[in-house]
Structure formats: structure tokens, C-alpha cells
């Protein structure tokens, strides 16, 4: 469980160039371990989707990666930096090692091609030696896996419901048996029943196939239920990272506390719902110091001056969690914590 599969090191992503640039992701360090579900939460504009697209270099212009490394650890080979791959090698890496289930299933499928064609495309690109017959069999198998009958193979996307389309996308993501699956708000467009059904199915598939998941959503309640660890993003930075249960029980960063306070508890005693005052920061004019300080109920002097370090706090379970808050000064900065890992 502790073996890393994807390590993000000081990833920086800008939109635009020069003075006009907006820093959407700043010095993000995050490690995905083999077999785990890592949740990534934050308000819209916190940089969580940018982070996911940035690490596979899928950001549309004017997105630019201005620094960082994304180290991928294949199962039986030496680790390598995804950001340093050539275009051709990156194409080979994509989907075979890291697949993505995108936000909004409506537009993820090409409207003019059959489902079978779009599934086949992946196999044709990555396994050119595969025969047409076995490609077809594989596509059917994948659809069956996500609960879609094989006779929908020749359907066009507009003939499927939103839930079915998202299942097709999940099936497509798993077709090459990748190590990592990134899910970007995979169920936001669906109704609540469908959401849980699909996520439940996904967790089951993960147990069977053993891939790791980065699960991005603004809905912290889903993460608490479905993920092993949770990272909270704010203003392009990770502000807290902890095991899901620990975060739920005892969030250290005031922003995490605010997020947790803004939806009803699933179990346990009732608590008062409270939103977070104010709105997410304008990325163009980020506050100095800790970017949350203008909204923070507990901000004090240094918050507006110094950017807090993401590191292990001095708490009893501090060894497995990190936080970037002056209320909980880092005992060991996160970046320094694991020098032996590479």
C-alpha cells in the first residue's frame, strides 16, 4: 500500500505567459500509492482539475506547465518522469498507464462515431497487433464489465442515457488495464442514485483489477465515503492531506473544516451546517501569505505575510498527514520527508 505509483513534485501550472499569467497550480506535491483511492477536493477554481490535466499534459492553451516533475512507477520497470517524455512516448503512456474519466459524460464521447469505434480506437492505437476479432471481443468484455449489454456496441452516444455514457467512459478507461485512473467529477452531471451506483461499481472494479484512483470532486461527502486519503486544494495549493477518516474526524486546516461543515454528516451526530464566508480567490490577484487568510476565521498576523509550508504537524497521527497552516507549523516539511523514495 505504501509503494508509490505516481509522484507529483512541485508541479506548477500557469494560464497565459509573462505578466498576464495566472498561477493555477503552485508547487503541488502529491503521492498516489499503489491501489489506493486518493480524493482531491476543493471549490471550483481551486486548481484540482488543472492539476489532473496538467500531470498528463492535457491542458488546452493557454495552459503551460512552468515547472515540476511527475514520476510514474511502472509495475515492473524503472520509474520515469512523465513530463519529460517525447510526444510519441507520451502517446504510448496515455491511457495505457494513466486513463482519465472526464467531467461531463455528455461531451466526452465523439457524437459522430459509434461506441464500438471509439473503444476500438484505443486498442488500435495501443495494441496494433491485436486482431479485429479479439479487439471486438475485448470491447464487448469491457462493456459487460460496466454493466452495458453488448448489443449497445453499435449505438451512437446520443442514443445512450447520461449514466450509460459515463459507464462507457469508465469501461473505456479500463480497457488497457491502466495503473492509474483519474476521475474528474465523474458523476457530477448524474442524479444521486446513479452517482452512488456508478461509484460503488467503480470501487468494486478497483478491488478486482487493482488500479489506483485519483478522484476529483467538490463533493467532500463522496470522498469521505469512497476514498482512502483526501487532499484538499485551495488557491492552487494543497492545504491539507490526510487519511479520509482522520480528515473527517479532525480536520486541521480551517478551510478543510469549512468544507466539511458545508454538507450534512453521513453518520454520527447531527451538526450545524455552516458555509465558508466569501468566495474563492481570484487567481489573478492572489492574497499574500496564506491565500485563505481573508476568509479564514482563525487568521492571525503571519497568515497575511508568510506562505505556510505543507508539512507534518505535531499531532499524534501526524506521521500520515500533512497540512499547510500556521496554526499547525510543520515539524518536517513534506518535500524533505521522503528523500529515499527516488
Amino acid at each position, binding site marked *: 500500500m505504501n509503494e508509490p505509483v505516481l509522484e507529483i513534485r512541485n508541479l506548477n501550472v500557469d494560464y497565459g505567459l509573462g505578466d498576464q499569467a495566472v498561477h493555477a497550480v503552485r508547487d503541488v506535491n502529491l503521492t498516489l500509492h499503489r491501489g489506493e483511492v486518493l480524493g482531491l477536493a476543493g471549490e471550483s477554481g481551486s486548481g484540482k482539475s488543472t492539476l489532473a490535466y496538467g500531470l498528463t499534459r492535457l491542458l488546452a492553451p*493557454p495552459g*503551460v506547465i512552468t515547472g515540476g516533475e511527475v514520476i510514474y512507477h511502472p509495475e515492473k520497470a524503472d520509474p520515469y518522469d512523465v513530463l519529460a517524455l517525447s510526444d510519441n512516448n507520451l502517446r504510448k503512456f496515455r491511457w495505457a498507464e494513466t486513463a482519465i474519466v472526464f467531467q461531463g459524460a455528455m461531451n466526452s464521447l465523439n457524437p459522430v462515431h459509434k461506441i464500438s469505434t471509439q473503444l476500438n480506437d484505443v486498442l488500435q492505437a495501443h495494441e496494433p497487433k491485436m486482431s479485429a476479432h479479439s479487439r471486438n471481443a475485448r470491447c464487448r468484455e469491457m462493456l459487460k464489465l460496466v454493466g452495458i449489454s453488448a448489443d449497445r456496441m453499435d449505438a451512437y452516444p446520443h442514443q445512450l442515457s447520461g449514466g450509460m455514457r459515463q459507464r462507457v467512459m469508465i469501461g473505456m478507461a479500463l480497457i488497457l488495464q491502466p495503473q492509474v485512473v483519474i476521475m474528474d467529477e465523474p458523476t457530477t452531471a448524474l442524479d444521486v442514485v446513479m452517482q452512488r451506483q456508478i461509484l460503488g461499481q467503480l470501487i468494486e472494479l478497483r478491488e478486482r483489477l487493482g488500479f489506483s484512483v485519483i478522484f476529483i470532486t467538490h463533493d467532500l461527502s463522496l470522498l469521505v465515503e469512497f476514498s482512502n486519503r483526501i487532499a484538499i486544494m485551495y488557491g492552487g495549493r494543497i492545504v491539507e492531506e490526510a487519511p479520509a477518516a482522520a480528515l473527517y474526524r479532525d480536520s486541521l486546516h480551517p478551510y478543510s473544516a469549512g468544507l466539511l461543515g458545508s454538507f450534512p454528516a453521513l453518520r454520527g451526530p447531527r451538526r450545524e451546517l455552516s458555509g465558508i464566508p*466569501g468566495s474563492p480567490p481570484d487567481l489573478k490577484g492572489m492574497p499574500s501569505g496564506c491565500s485563505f487568510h*481573508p476568509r479564514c476565521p*482563525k487568521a492571525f498576523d503571519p497568515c497575511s505575510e508568510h506562505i505556510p509550508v505543507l508539512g507534518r504537524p505535531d499531532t499524534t497521527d501526524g506521521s500520515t498527514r500533512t497540512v499547510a497552516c500556521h496554526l499547525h507549523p510543520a515539524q518536517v516539511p513534506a*518535500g524533505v520527508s521522503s528523500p529515499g523514495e527516488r
Partner: protein
Amino acid sequence: MTIPTSSIDQVIPGEGAMAQPEAATPTKAKRQRFRFLANAKATTGLVIMGIYLLFAVIGPWVAPYDPNARSNDLVAPPSGAHWLGTTHLGQDVLSQLLVGTRGVMVVGLAAGIAATIVSVVVGVSAGYLGGGWDDTLSALSNVFLVIPALPLIIIVASTFENAGSSIVAVTIGLTAWAWGARVLRAQTLSLRKRDYVEAARASGESTWRVIFFEILPNLSAIIASGFVGTVIFAVSTEITLAFIGIGGISNWNWGEILFWAQSQQALSQGAWWWFVPAGLAIAFLGTALSLINFGIDEFVSPRLRSAGKTKIKTASGHTVRMRVGFTPVLANTAAPRTHAVPLPINLNGATPVLRSSGKEGAQ
């Protein structure tokens, strides 16, 4: 269960955050308004257009000769006396061109205005009123869309004895509105479903008030682009009509210059100065109008906006291009860019209280 509010609640919550969006909104709106003018294409188009309008006004005064005046220099190439040469009757081509600008612009703009009015009335009514109105008006505009306009215009204009420029303008205006109406209908349909329009309707505002104050202002960019589009069509049509000898006999429309050039064998005489300048004048006018329309398009649909600089230098000195699907990587090092700092030691005194609160929660 939640972290207890600490005693160091120094910042008034919400103050900074509330101030931000308030301040951001007006500057953003301002920026948007100026973005159209900042668009290089639109500016270029508007400048060229301005020059044409200027000559439409002052053309007849600055023309060195009477465009009808004959001289003894027959089909003379450009010279000091006649900058753009002369015609078969010794008329000055430059003067004809300058005098003709007004006619071209007046007919083009008049037809554009007429077509725009019709398209707004038909398109907005169809989109807003819906039902039977929509079916009828949509069918009408689709019919006008597919009927080839020029032959129709030629027939209508030629049935009038000596069709003047006003008849030409009206005929063009009445046949060129359909495309604009179709686009406006679609946009009105989507606007009608927006919350603020629904709200205005629900609060009992009259149909006309909703159309004028809620719908039309939001259609302005599309109306403008439709107007420019019809002016392009009108200018090319009126020049074509003049070229084949219909309408605009007296005002030296550029098409008329070309008509004489063609019928008096300018081609076989090698008199390029007779037909090249008029054609270039038409082409540049059309280009200017197209550029304005590109500007509007990019204003309305940000995806078309060019991303400015598309080639970037990476830290290692390579040049990469911004493109979809392969985000450029400028620097590939794991060194942090912004430096988060651990708190200076002297501030540690403030934290113990809070640290204990964290421990409390963990138990």
C-alpha cells in the same frame, strides 16, 4: 466537534473576500468592452472603413476632374496629370473612383440597414413569439435563404425602367435579410429561456419592454455582425449590377467603371489602370468589412481569439508551440518555484494554544 474559534480572530471574516469580487466585476466588464477595440483585426478593419467613409464624404470635392469631363488623352496610362490614367473618352479614372465612393457606400449602408431592420423584426419575433409565428417566419426566411438572390435582384431591378440607386438598395435589402434573421432567431430562442428574461416576463413586463430592454441589448453583437455581413453582400451585389449595366447610371459606381472598361476593350488594349484600381478598391472594402466581422466573431466566441504568443521558449532553450493535447512544459525540475516559509521562531509563542486544540480533536 469543529475546531473551536480561537482567540486570535483578528481578521474580520468576509471583509477581504467580500471586497474582492465587488472590485473585480467592474474592471472585468471594462476590460471586455475595450477588448473589441484592442482586437487588431477589428481595428484594422475600422481604420480602413474610416478612410472609405472619409472619401465617401469628401470624394467629389477632392476629385481633380469632373468624372464625366472628356479630354483628348484617350486611354492614357497613369501620368502626373491623370494619376490613374484615363478612359476611352479621356475621363479621369481617379476622379471617377473618388466620386463613385459615395454611391457605393450609400447604397451598401442603406441596403445593410434595411436588411438588418427586416432581419431583427423577423428573427426576434420568430424567436420570441414562438408557435405559429415562429413556423411562418422561419419558413419565410428559409425560403429567402435558398432562392438565389442575384438572379432575382437582376430580374426585379431590370423590370424597372432605369432603376435608380434607391431601388437597387431596397431590392438588395429585401432579399438579403434571411441569414441574419435565422441567426437572430436561434439566439433569441436561447435568450428567452434565460433566468433574467423569465423573471422580467413573470413580473408582468410588456412584451415590447422585454424585447427592447432584455433581449435586444444582448443581441447587439450578432446584429452588428449581421449588419456588416449584409453590407458586404450589398456592396458586391450593387457593383455586380452596375457591372452588368443595371442601375446606378449616373453616380460612377465602381461597377460602372468596370462596365465601361470591359465593354470598351480595356483588356485587349492593355489598359490595366482602368480596371485594376476599381477592383482593388472593392477588394479592400470587402477585406475591411470582413476584418470587422472577424473581430466581432472573436469577441462573441472567445475560442476563436488567437492566444497571442503561441511559441514559447523553455528553460532549456527549446521553442515549443502551444497546442491542444500537448501542454508545453517550460521547466522540468522539481525545484519549488514559490517559497513557502516556516514561521519565524519568535511567532511560535502564539501557537501552543492551538496546537493543543489539534490534539484534543485527535483523541
